[in-house]
């Protein structure tokens, strides 16, 4: 056992234990660590925004480099603050509209191409998709299963007709695929949460207490 003598390792270990104490019940140590985390995160963000963005990309160019036209961007950005003045709070709509307009314009074609067109292409039964699975002769089987899964799952979400007859059969098969998907997602979630616990225990038992190497 080789306990750390580093001050910040002890601080980190203390805060980790404060958070873990919530597993027993809510308590002042947990509250302290939670509030400290929120405060530090905000402070970190504000500091880096000032040093990394506001000063080098906006204020310094305007004040010392003669790029005065950036004042326009600063004014539009500052309109977000009008939210706190009831009489002119409507002006907050201007930067929101600009941001939403720009973001939507950039996002819509990209998302249609990446999330719809390519996904539909990936579901079509083609020799290219058969080989993409890289599973030898099983590639065809996997692609057909995928095709059936997509069609049946989509039919489950078709609510304009009662789920009877062919639609009843396909929607029931779709339910099986959905359940398998939920199961896989749950399994991965367990893996993720346990991994986070392991990471913290590696720190507490290794870096702090020195029990593990």
């Amino acid at each position, binding site marked *: 056992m080789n306990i750390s003598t580093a001050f910040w390792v002890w601080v980190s270990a203390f805060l980790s234990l404060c958070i873990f104490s919530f597993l027993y019940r809510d308590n002042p140590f947990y509250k302290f660590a939670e509030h400290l985390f929120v405060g530090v995160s905000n402070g970190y963000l504000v500091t880096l925004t000032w040093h990394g963005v506001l000063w080098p990309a906006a204020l310094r160019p305007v004040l010392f480099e003669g790029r005065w036209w950036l004042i326009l961007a600063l004014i539009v950005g500052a309109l977000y603050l009008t939210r706190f003045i009831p009489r002119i709070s409507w002006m907050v709509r201007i930067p929101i509209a600009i941001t939403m307009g720009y973001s939507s314009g950039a996002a819509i074609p990209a998302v249609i191409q990446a999330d719809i067109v390519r996904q539909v292409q990936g579901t079509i039964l083609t020799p290219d998709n058969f080989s993409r699975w890289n599973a030898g002769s099983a590639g065809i089987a996997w692609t057909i299963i995928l095709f059936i899964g997509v069609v049946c799952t989509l039919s489950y979400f078709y609510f304009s007709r009662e789920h009877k007859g062919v639609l009843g059969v396909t929607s029931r098969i779709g339910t099986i695929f959905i359940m398998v998907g939920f199961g896989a997602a749950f399994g991965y979630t367990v893996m993720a949460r346990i*991994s986070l616990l392991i990471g913290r225990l590696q720190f507490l038992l290794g870096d702090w207490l020195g029990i593990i190497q």
Partner: protein
Amino acid sequence: MKIFDYLATIDRRIIYLIIAIVVILPLVFPRPQRVRVMTPTQKLFEAVDSIPEEKVLLIDFDYDPQTAPENEPMAIALIRHAFKKRIKVAALSLYVQPLGLAVKALDQVREEFNARATTNEDSIIYGRDYVLLGWQPPPIVPLLGLGISISGVYPTDYYGYRTDSLPVMWGIRNLSNVGILVSVSGGSAPLWWVAYSQVRYGVMVAAGLTAVSASEFFIYYQTGQFSGLMVGMKGGAEYEEMVAQLDVPGRRRASEALGSLTAAHLTIIAFIIIGNIGYFVRRRRK
């Protein structure tokens, strides 16, 4: 059948205690675990391995302390791989929080290599072998701008050096000079790289993901939009093992954790089976 009544009302803190014991024991008394490398991780490794000399590996650090146990081993294994193969590395982040973790990972691997280096050529040197470009908000700026000009989006790097003055960036103008872009992320950033940068500029994209988001991302691997994936701590361990075969020094945190991960999974499977048996037994009795 009183046992099932007892289990149905068991205090959740006892479950926590059992999980803690199950996770701690394999860490304290480790046993070697066999790591089977899955195809998505293998493909990522091969894609990085085949980056030509004139191109750069672009790593997007987009994880924060909450997901670092899963993402950090992936990032470190990637950097070790690149440094070992003398592949140039450029790193960036779409958000501010991961920057400190990016610095930590890059510094750690640089020191691991430099501890064994005997000459200047063997050493890993900032500016010559790698660069940390930093953070440029909002994320859409680098997502779209890197396809036009990397130094246009990042005129200076994280440390304030002019980006185009660094030897590592000589000949690296935009995404067409990127061998592969690997987004190590605890969120949706890899999908943004696909939607914005790959659709528009055709850059190869791969991802290191937390396990919780894996099922959402596999569909993009199936279509070939991701050239490779590392999923969760297991994915990190797989990459670590492949890199270790290249005789690369350094601790392999994800591989060390596999015993605990396996034990915890088996315990939770046992809980689910016992819980279901108890549910059906009690329902039958009613």
